[in-house]
């Protein structure tokens, strides 16, 4: 097993699946790069180099550069999935869903149900999300709650290179449309990643820390921060469980409920805007089903209800961080007014 970056893990997953299954194709803007241009072929391998090397190995017929035409090629990917291919389409930044969402939520997501169960749509849409890149309001959002809201879509948010590879292979082999979220601040993070192909199941949460006092649920890049917060709190005598659900649709709510019943305290860390995000969804489900176990009100750690700001001073303020998570855990520890039933 070698140490690999998140970028390498995603690349390796796609490469191995393309080698395994000739129906797997990839498409997107600059996915190889340099199409029709006088210079280098495979000039970019995607804007951040994630798909570098696929085109030289598999050729232009299976690694398709597209014009900047998100509705066109995301829709084509949906239609190709419906008719026998297994496309991995790169919607470069999730913010661009604004120009192609119809093809995702009205078309791909609904084929199976609308057609009475007869359709299969094995489509993966990879997309970058998240703040911290000083990329401002139109290139930094965490729009996974919007996709989670739509029945028919699966939503995957890996938090590490190991997860990225296993979940990507699972996504490509899955017969439903999957939106695969890659946090742009995670690409250079390294981890032990097996060389051979492997899958991680959807809808099964991973416990990255186990403790008795409070449960922290976190998504994507926030898992790293939650782990760091839990480690610091542990050194101060507060032991936390950290849950990485890995997928928001399906969501492993049972594991979350089980851990909340064990600790009686819940903090949900979600980089998405605070209204109707994953934190509010989980808070609602826990309040509905495990209210009697709660020793303190649920706390949500999310950004304020604003667009993502540009200035580093403002963006740093905007984002959840380790200090904010620690402070939320301390708050649920202090608010011990209710006794568990």
């Amino acid at each position, binding site marked *: 097993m070698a140490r690999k970056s998140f970028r390498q893990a995603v690349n390796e997953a796609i490469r191995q699946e393309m080698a395994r299954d000739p*129906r797997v*194709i990839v498409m997107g803007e600059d996915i190889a790069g340099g199409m029709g241009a006088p210079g280098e072929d495979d000039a970019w391998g995607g804007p951040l180099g994630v798909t570098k090397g696929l085109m030289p190995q598999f050729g232009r*017929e*299976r690694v*398709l550069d*597209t*014009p900047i*035409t998100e*509705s*066109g*090629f*995301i*829709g*084509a*990917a*949906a*239609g*190709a*999935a*419906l*008719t*026998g*291919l297994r*496309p991995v389409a790169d919607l470069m930044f999730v913010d661009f869903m604004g*120009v192609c969402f*119809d*093809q995702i939520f*009205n*078309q791909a997501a*609904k*084929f*199976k*149900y*609308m*057609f*009475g*169960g*007869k*359709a*299969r749509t094995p489509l993966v849409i990879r997309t970058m999300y998240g703040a911290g890149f000083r990329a401002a309001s139109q290139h930094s959002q965490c729009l996974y709650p919007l996709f989670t809201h739509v*029945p*028919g879509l*699966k939503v995957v948010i890996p938090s590490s290179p190991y997860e990225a590879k296993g979940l990507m292979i699972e996504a490509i082999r*899955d*017969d*439903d449309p999957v939106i695969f979220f890659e946090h742009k601040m995670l690409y250079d993070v390294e981890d032990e990643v097996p060389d051979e192909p492997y899958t991680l199941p959807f*809808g099964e949460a991973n416990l990255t820390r186990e403790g008795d006092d409070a449960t922290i649920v976190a998504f994507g890049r926030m898992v790293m921060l939650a782990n760091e917060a839990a480690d610091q709190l542990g050194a101060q005598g507060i032991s936390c469980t950290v849950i990485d659900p890995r997928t928001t649709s*399906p969501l492993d709510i049972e594991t979350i409920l089980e851990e909340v019943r064990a600790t009686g305290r819940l903090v949900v860390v979600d980089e998405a805007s605070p209204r109707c995000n994953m934190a509010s969804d989980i808070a609602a489900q826990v309040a509905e089903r495990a209210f009697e176990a709660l020793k303190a009100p649920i706390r949500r750690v999310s950004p304020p209800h604003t667009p993502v700001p540009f200035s580093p001073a403002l963006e740093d303020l905007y984002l959840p961080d380790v200090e904010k998570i620690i402070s939320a855990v301390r708050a649920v520890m202090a608010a011990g007014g209710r006794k568990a039933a």
Partner: protein
Amino acid sequence: MQLSREELLRAYRSMCTIRQFEERVHAEFATGDIPGFVHLYAGEEASAVGVCMNLTERDSIASTHRGHGHCIAKGCDVAGMMAEIYGRKSGLCAGKGGSMHIADLDRGMLGANGIVGGGAPLACGAALTAKTLKTGAVAVAFGGDGASNQGTTAEAMNLASVWRLPVVFVLEDNGYAESTASAWSIGGDPLVRAEGFGIPGVRVDGHDFFAVHAAAGEAIARARDGGGPGFLHLKLARYFGHFEGDGMTYRAPDEVAKLRAERDCLKLFRRRVGEAQLLDDAALDAIEAEVAAEIEDATRRAKAAPMPSPADLLTDVYVSY
């Protein structure tokens, strides 16, 4: 292309089936028994049939909200369609799709579509599958004059041109996008738009089955042979409103009556095959009678068929979850 007697009979049967199906849905909708809303294709039969006569089951079409005609022309089961429109479990989509989402993937019918302009990118996808897997299949994207102004249509045409996809875009210009005249809503000329994407196009009298069949045949054959996408601008007309219940006050008072009398594609077909002595009235009348019986049977069965069961609400969302 010279059509055989068998092909002519098949074409007439298909157009007749669409017409009678739509006239029946029109009548039944007025009774209040059909849920939701429907958009009828009557008047436009020469387009669906003229195009789809050039396709096989392995070829795909992406349709529109006015999709019943495309479904029938592509071979969807008429009884299953009627049951679907009534929301019955025996419907082609188990009652979960309804009029605007009838699909039959086994016959290459990728779905009617509730989103104007939604189908063109999907047809590109089907064409990409054909090109990648080298199946020799083609795809057809039907769209109306309304869809022709959507960005998805422009994006799909550009993508088809850039990727040289085996896809034909068929613009069914029935004169009105909902209540808005296409003469007003389309800036410039659709043929020039196609030309701007490097896609050869042709404008055809959409009431004339033979003209549509020939033009579509040429574009589809070219696409199938690796010659890239094609475009047809069909000028035609619908007999009913945008949806059932539309008072059509935006149309001239005698417009539809005049169209039915002078430009009806079924009448034009009969006159043409009669004058050329290709088919006689008896054969055509027999088809009309057989179709009438088929539609009657489909309607009776649809009305008698059971509704979906409560358990059906939660199934078919995912392959696995």
